[in-house]
């Protein structure tokens, strides 16, 4: 009996080890491109065709701001991403709440339409917009790129928000109205704070989707400035130089740092809340 148990435990351990190994290998696969991208930002070669030795020169070149094409593209991408994030988050948050809370005749149809940009290949929607914009006579440029980005960011924002609204929200809102707050006061002071984490993740998602988009930015740009991803796509033909790697390395470092700071702040807030909660008498039953 114990012999058998021992065997079983051993087998279980072996299986667990294999599972861990598998996970490590898969995660390695995900991080290979990131590692390669970072390593080649230190490559002492004019074009990234082969490894020629270590240098930090590309970072120097990057922050001498001499490569204006690259910086212009980044600034353009950032402006579009910020605007797309603001527009998509506002429309998406309102829409998410509205579509969850109210019943109206076209609701089913709108709900379906929201899933279209998420599911349909982006190129189809981009081309469809391109044709209709040109036919109607809208000039291609930043405005059209922005419309394109918002069109796929809004649905993600709506879905994120809808997932965060629960019955609790309705109870809170009703309590607020019963206590004499009007609709707008309730919305601003009760509804919005109660779904704040959802709003933050919708905004974050919109930003990452927009800043990394190629298809819409490429198809709807017209003759205007290229966004960073579109620039990289076109430069790739002739081989990229290390400063592009340096720039994207700086960007990912900023993103991860931002994430760490955010989670640190969140932890501090919840710690403080826990402390206050311990001091105050329990209000909610």
């Amino acid at each position, binding site marked *: 009996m114990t012999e058998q148990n021992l065997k079983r435990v051993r087998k279980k351990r072996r299986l667990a080890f294999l*599972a861990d190994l*598998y*996970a490590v290998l*898969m*995660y390695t*696969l995900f991080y*290979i*491109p*990131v590692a*390669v991208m970072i390593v*080649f930002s230190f490559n002492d070669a004019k074009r990234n065709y*082969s490894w020629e030795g270590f240098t930090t020169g590309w970072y120097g070149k990057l922050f001498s701001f001499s490569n204006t094409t690259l910086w212009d593209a980044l600034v353009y991408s950032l402006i579009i991403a910020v605007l797309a994030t603001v527009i998509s988050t*506002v*429309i998406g948050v*309102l*829409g998410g*709440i*509205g*579509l969850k809370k*109210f019943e*109206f005749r*076209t*609701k089913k149809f*709108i*709900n379906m*339409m929201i*899933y*279209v*940009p998420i*599911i*349909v*290949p982006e*190129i*189809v*929607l981009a*081309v469809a*917009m391109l*044709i209709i914009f040109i*036919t109607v006579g809208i000039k291609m440029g930043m405005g059209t790129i922005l419309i394109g980005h*918002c*069109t796929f960011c809004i649905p993600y924002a*709506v879905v*994120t928000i809808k997932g965060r609204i629960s*019955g609790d929200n309705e109870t809170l809102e009703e309590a607020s109205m019963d206590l004499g707050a009007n*609709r707008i006061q309730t919305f601003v002071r009760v509804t919005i704070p109660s779904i704040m984490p959802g709003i933050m993740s919708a905004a974050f*998602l919109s930003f*990452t989707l927009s800043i*990394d988009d*190629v*298809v819409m930015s490429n*198809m709807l740009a017209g003759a205007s400035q290229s966004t*960073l991803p579109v620039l*990289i*796509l076109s430069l*790739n033909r002739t081989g990229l130089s290390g400063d*592009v790697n340096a720039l994207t390395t700086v*960007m*990912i470092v900023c*993103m991860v740092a931002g*994430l760490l700071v955010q989670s640190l702040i969140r932890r501090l807030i919840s710690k403080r809340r826990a402390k206050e909660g311990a001091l105050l008498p329990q209000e909610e039953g």
Partner: protein
Amino acid sequence: MNRSSGTKKKKNRLPVLAQAGPVSVWMILFVTLPLLFIIYVSFMTRGTFGGIEYTFSTESYRTILDPMYFSVILKSLKVAAVTTILCLLFGYPLAYFIARKPPETASKLIMLLMIPFWTNGMMRLNAWMLFFQVNGPVNYVLTHLGIVEKPVMFLYTDWLVNIGLFTNMLPFAVLPMYSSIEKLQKSLLEASSDLGADPVRTFLKVTLPLTFPGIFSAIILTFIPALGTYTVTDMLGGGKVLYIGNIIKNQFGTIRNWPLGAALSVLLLVITALLIFIYSRFAGIEDMEVV
């Protein structure tokens, strides 16, 4: 709850309009109308200098059936299918692994899965090129271990495009399967094994069927983007590898045959709609875990 929102609606439509209005208008203006228009355009005639001539024709659809285009469509379908199968085969065990961890570890693992995707997508593809290029690390290892004599030309092949698609799509296959597996009640698995089923049988008869919605979401979220991609093929195929996405894009660049581009887009729409229809037979579209 329903009744109260019903009476609210009758009393005052302003809140509905204010909240659901903007998103409805946006979706109709920039999703419904363009898609209807592209279907219309696909039945029009190609203009002499590009653009559209508004006379009815099925020429674009006949062109699609031309062997030259049709072979590209078949190839795209095949590559998308291969990508999807690879994502399911490699993604399911990973999703299972993550779902069986305690919630805190699991959410960290999910985060770790998403971080690489904050790096620029084009640079990630470029990195695969650097990794597999003639003087790259893979060829270095292969030649030094004596596995191959001369460096292998990985670049600009369907094979590398497949690698790019697979690694790009994998997390989007893992996420829906993860949430499906995570929702799976442990008691069911225990019941199954208590009733004498061995682990394999439990997996096939309980786990797999119950996580099928997640699996099908994963199929949709990998197959459709893989089918419509042009950036992966552009970056890793160096313009030598053409899939549907590239052909559509080219109709609006150099080749300027808009109705053909529209018809190919409609084809992608139809394939998408077909998959969604199958999906909706056994799960609601709102259950699809997209974020």
